[in-house]
């Protein structure tokens, strides 16, 4: 589906932007957060943590929408997100989601 213009009510919607916090040394490297992040914000860090696992790494800063799925699916309480700001909806965002 493509939009030919920005929806008229775009001003009343916004995109939450989350800031991810990773407590690296708690991670046991299960990969749940990386796999199930709806925006694929995370990837495996190349380095080991203290326990010898690869914790997640934020690759696309600013693309976390603070859905906090990673937070509730993490078995180790090693990741959480906090709301940083609300971003106004732009034509690019609409286009971006439409492509998905």
């Amino acid at each position, binding site marked *: 589906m493509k939009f030919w213009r920005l929806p008229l009510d775009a001003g009343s919607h916004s995109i939450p932007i989350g800031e991810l916090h990773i*407590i690296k040394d*708690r991670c*046991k490297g*299960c*990969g749940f957060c990386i796999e199930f992040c709806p925006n694929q914000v995370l990837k495996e860090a190349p380095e080991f943590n203290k326990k010898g696992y690869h914790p997640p790494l934020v690759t696309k800063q600013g693309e976390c929408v603070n859905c906090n799925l990673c*937070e*509730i699916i993490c*078995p*180790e309480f090693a990741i*959480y997100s906090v709301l940083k700001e609300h971003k106004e909806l732009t034509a690019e965002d609409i286009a971006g989601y439409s492509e998905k």
Partner: protein
Amino acid sequence: MKIRYQPIVPFNREAVDRLIDEQHGLHPDDQYLKPGRIPHIWCPGCGLGVVLNTYINGLKMSGIPIDRSVVVSGIGCTGRVAGYLNMDTYHTTHGRAIPFATGISLARPDLSVTVFSGDGDLFAIGGNHFIHAARRNINLKVICVNNFNYGMTGGQVAPTTPVTARTTTTPYGNAEASFNLPYLAHASGAVYVARWTTFHARQLVNAIAETLAINGFTFIEVIAPCPIGYGRPNKIGSGLDEMIYYKENSVVRNGADPREADVSLRGKIVVGKFSEEKRPTFREDYEEKVLKKFRRTEG
């Protein structure tokens, strides 16, 4: 007889406090966890941490304060849940979490009592207690983490192990039929029956919050990966592979007849909220039909 005791090493609180992870408090949910108890004992890829996490989030959503919450668990990997929560928690004997919790719930009807235990604990050794507590409609929130095997003892057959699945005590494949837990719970009289997998974390948080608001015997089955005891011998792979399997093979059917919710080794997993009904709890009926007869009116 003369007794020569071994010397006693006294309890050293400072030494114990030193064991508290320096990272304790970094996560906003750490206030729900007992200081010094994380990291937990569960394997990488195990689903139990997810269930613990979703329970905390469900509790937050329900608005019930931790001072009014009690968790009782049995023995096994899931039994360890109680030890991590920063509230009144009771880690009882194998299979006996439900009757122990029944005592607490009847003694303190104002408290919210959740029973956390595994499929083996609740349905093999504790099966009788489960059906009777459901029949009586004791006000308990039962969360059964089903990983299809006995994890703590190294992956033996459980009453939930699907036919043909391999465990250390079914080396040629399981020849026994398994329990369909939602059907069993529903037939026994549970007033709320749902099943989710650990992949459905968000639905699970909602379901836990929903049951915490219900007065009665509620049942949530959480299908969870056990990469060591179940995933590996059955060639499903890692915990993550099991999670992906749930994602790809789960069918959400709210209101489905629990009779149709059987789980097989490689089949689809029906998930959803299967039933909810209202009926008086044991305590309510006891109050109304028995205690009221002897209650002195004020003044």
